[in-house]
């Protein structure tokens, strides 16, 4: 779309609006908060105009035009809800449904289905079709991630175009002709693209369902949080859906600066550890569950001894090992605690994996940049040394510390029980807390709580702040991540002026010197 900065004035349903030249009617209508219904149109896919539900009336044009393929021109007057348009839409709606199985009661898409939505908004609620519906293949496996139901499919070809135009794998084709048309997957019928699950989100109806999520929950029983995928440094924006404190799925959330409309399958399916049955839920001291106060007291005693011994000094060696899964607020609190102790040995490790030229980042953690910014070094721990105290945030893979590290006392935050820990605090996942991370491209983004971890659970940030309060007279932590962020903003130049609400749901770009965050 080349606009050359030109704009045009159009009138849509009586409302005047100025939009860039080259804007189509569906997009122009969004400017006046009018939704022109559409199935096949998607802003990132080629325009094919096959669903015909976006027909609109244009003053002076004899025939109705499809909103997706008609660009507005200066002085154009568009009617998106005239009698003529309503009648045509009713017709298309009826035709879309005559062969549709109407099996909403057992369909996973129910509740977020454009056929349901538009049938209510634009249909008659009745059918005049008195014949047997077309029989087409159902429950077709397209591999281990996607399941296809040809009877529900409305042939919008969004999935076909996504894999062709954006992934370049061109895996889905169209078989047969006329009313018998159906989709097929080439070769052995199994999808291979590492981004294939996006077609489930793209599918406006229930034809493509996720093998992982299907039949787990009706969407209206779920609660949703606008958060991030933390599977790699990209920080794809997602909506995480949970029910009864179990995380059930992630779907991408639009962010033009980060992940556009998409996310990778690897990230999307990287959530089940949250629901693990063997999660550590209560603090433990010497292998026994204890109240938080007792655990805090024991940890504070260990740290106090270290502080008196000189912290990082040679006589008492203390190691602070952070994790790139921690939020900036946690890292800030951790760094503050280590400051209070005088600890200089601060490390973390980044789990590395495969990257690609789309979204996958080789750093398989969300916040290595934050860890560096708050003074932790991405460097190996001296395994030869005898450490007196280690404070360790264990990442999912155990992260960062050699198995045979010599340490007299260990304070460990972990997902599962750490048998070697003197004091073991439960670690929460990014879906169980609020905070910020610095994603690839130095973008500061928010993670938000999608579900509540154990009821009396104290987040790591609160634990760290309380520990500091126990060894540093008068120290007061903050109550919320937003307040913690405000404190960071006062102390770190890169965060100056930033607030929780200011970061918003889409994040902001930070101006960071490379020395601060590394490559």
């Amino acid at each position, binding site marked *: 779309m080349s606009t050359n900065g030109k704009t045009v004035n159009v009138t849509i349903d009586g409302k005047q609006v100025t939009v860039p030249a080259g804007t189509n009617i569906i997009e122009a209508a969004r400017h006046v908060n009018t939704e022109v219904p559409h199935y096949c149109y998607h802003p990132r896919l080629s*325009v*094919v*105009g*096959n*669903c*015909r*539900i976006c*027909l609109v009336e244009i003053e002076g044009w004899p*025939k*109705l035009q*499809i909103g997706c*393929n008609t660009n507005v021109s200066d002085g154009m007057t568009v009617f998106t809800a005239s009698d003529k348009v309503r*009648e*045509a839409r*009713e*017709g*298309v709606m*009826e*035709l*879309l449904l*005559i*062969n549709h199985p109407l099996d909403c009661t057992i369909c996973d898409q129910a509740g977020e289905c454009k056929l349901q939505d538009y049938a209510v908004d634009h249909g008659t609620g009745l059918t*005049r*079709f008195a*014949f047997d519906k077309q029989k087409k293949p159902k429950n077709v496996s397209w591999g281990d991630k996607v399941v296809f139901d040809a009877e529900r499919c*409305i*042939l919008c070809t969004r999935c076909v175009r996504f894999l062709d135009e954006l992934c370049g794998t061109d895996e889905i*084709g*169209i078989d*047969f*002709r*006329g*009313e*018998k*048309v159906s989709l097929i997957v080439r070769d052995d019928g199994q999808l291979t693209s590492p981004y294939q699950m996006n077609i489930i989100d793209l599918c406006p109806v229930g034809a493509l369902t996720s093998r992982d999520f299907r039949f787990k929950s009706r969407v209206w029983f779920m609660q949703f949080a606008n958060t991030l995928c933390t599977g790699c440094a990209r920080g794809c924006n997602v909506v995480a859906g949970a029910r009864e404190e179990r995380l059930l799925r992630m779907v991408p959330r639009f962010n033009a600066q980060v992940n556009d409309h998409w996310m990778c399958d690897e990230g999307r399916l990287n959530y089940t550890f949250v629901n693990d049955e063997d999660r550590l839920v209560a603090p433990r001291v010497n292998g026994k569950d204890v109240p938080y106060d007792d655990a805090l007291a024991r940890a504070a005693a260990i740290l106090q001894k270290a502080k008196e011994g000189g912290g990082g000094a040679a006589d008492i060696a203390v190691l602070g090992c952070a994790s790139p899964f921690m939020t900036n607020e946690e890292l800030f609190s951790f760094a503050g605690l280590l400051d209070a102790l005088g600890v200089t040995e601060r490390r973390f490790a980044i789990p590395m994996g495969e990257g690609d030229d789309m979204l996958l980042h080789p750093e398989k953690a969300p916040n290595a940049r934050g860890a560096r910014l708050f003074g932790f070094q991405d460097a190996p721990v001296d395994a030869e040394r005898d450490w007196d105290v280690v404070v360790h945030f264990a990442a999912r893979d155990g992260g960062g510390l050699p198995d045979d590290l010599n340490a007299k006392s260990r304070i460990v935050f972990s997902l599962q029980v750490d048998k070697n820990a003197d004091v073991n605090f439960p670690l929460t996942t990014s879906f169980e807390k609020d905070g910020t991370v610095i994603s690839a491209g130095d973008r500061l983004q928010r993670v938000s709580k999608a579900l509540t971890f154990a009821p009396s659970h104290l987040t790591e940030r609160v634990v760290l702040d309380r520990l500091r309060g126990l060894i540093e007279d008068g120290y007061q932590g903050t109550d919320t991540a937003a307040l913690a962020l405000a404190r960071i903003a006062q102390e770190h130049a890169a965060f100056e002026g930033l607030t929780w609400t200011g970061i918003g749901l889409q994040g902001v770009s930070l101006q960071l010197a490379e020395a601060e965050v590394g490559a």
Partner: protein
Amino acid sequence: MTRETRVMLEYADDPAQKTLEGYRENGGYQALEKALREMSPDQVTAEVETSGLRGRGGAGFPTGRKWRFVPKTDKPKYLAVNADESEPGTCKDRQIMERDPHQLIEGSLLSCYAFGAKTAYIYVRGEYPHSIKALEDAIDEARAANLLGDKILGTDFCCDVWVHPGAGAYICGEETALLTSLEGNRGYPRIRPPFPAVEGLWHCPTIVNNVETIACVTHIIKRGGEWFSKLGCEGSTGTRLFCVSGHVKRPGVYEFECGKFTLRELIEGFCGGTLSGRPLKGVMPGGSSMPVLRADELDVTFDIESVQKAGSSLGSGAIMVFDDSVGAVGAAVNIAEFYSHESCGQCTPCREGSDWVRRMLLQFAAQDARDGDLDLLMDVTDKMDGTTICALAEALVWPVQSFVRKFRSEFEAAVRESAVGTATQ
């Protein structure tokens, strides 16, 4: 008086006309010589504009004006000759391709010269092996004689012509589906804009013209646009090929000047009336996709505008004649069966609607329809009309609706005699 005026078919009965030697003996490739040596490309287009030539594929768009849509760009330009002659009742293009193929090749070269193309593809329906063979033989001969390829006739003009066989889908005769198919993809029509003249084959400017249209270009350049424009009548200049089929004594492909006779004179006079001698029931004057005209509507002058005013169209020039042994319901079923089978399935109204209409019509044919079904049939077809990507839905809707409107009593009788009876009251 109805009589033939042969221009394109002038030498069709001469078996030697198929060969380059025979074609040249009858003045062949003189138009190409003339254009390449004496005329600028613009003059060729201007000559076609002067002739008043309108497309012969069905829509009747002025050919010269279409060529003018080709943008001035550095991109390659293409000519796609539509020889996917698949409209039921139509069999005119094959006469040109099989009996006088060189006039199509010459016309293709002239057209390419006019709008700056260097490649022409002739998309021939797969069911026409004889046409494909005749064209390929003619192309080989022409290429050997330097009428195709590099530096044609010693001039700077380089152009080649290729034959591409279709694979049996009616929809590939739709111009944009033809292009998608030529590109090697599933024959799906494309949304317009962009129109092919601006963005066609491989996103390059492409002119799609019917075989007969391109054949006319040869004669226009040979004998002048002025001469051509004086044949026929205003709005329907030149001569046109018509394929008369159905219940007539003298079916066949004929070449006429339009505007010189009425449809009744043509059928009852020239073609000798119905074969059986039974009363005439109706005529589809422009292929199976155009509305039917009843026997009492045939006193219409046979040209584009007059037939349009009478509520139908000359379409592809296929005149299908029915005597009174034909039932309107059965005819409508036949049409719906064809078009629903050929619907590509891309857009909703045609994919879902054409099969629904077919099944409703079968109910009428089985005398199994109910009160209200006729209104439903008309309403569903109304909603398919003008809401689709291409004209295939209308190719079903227009004739079916015309049969209902013009022979309504036969459809009503199918309801009355229905065993189902009324559903309510």
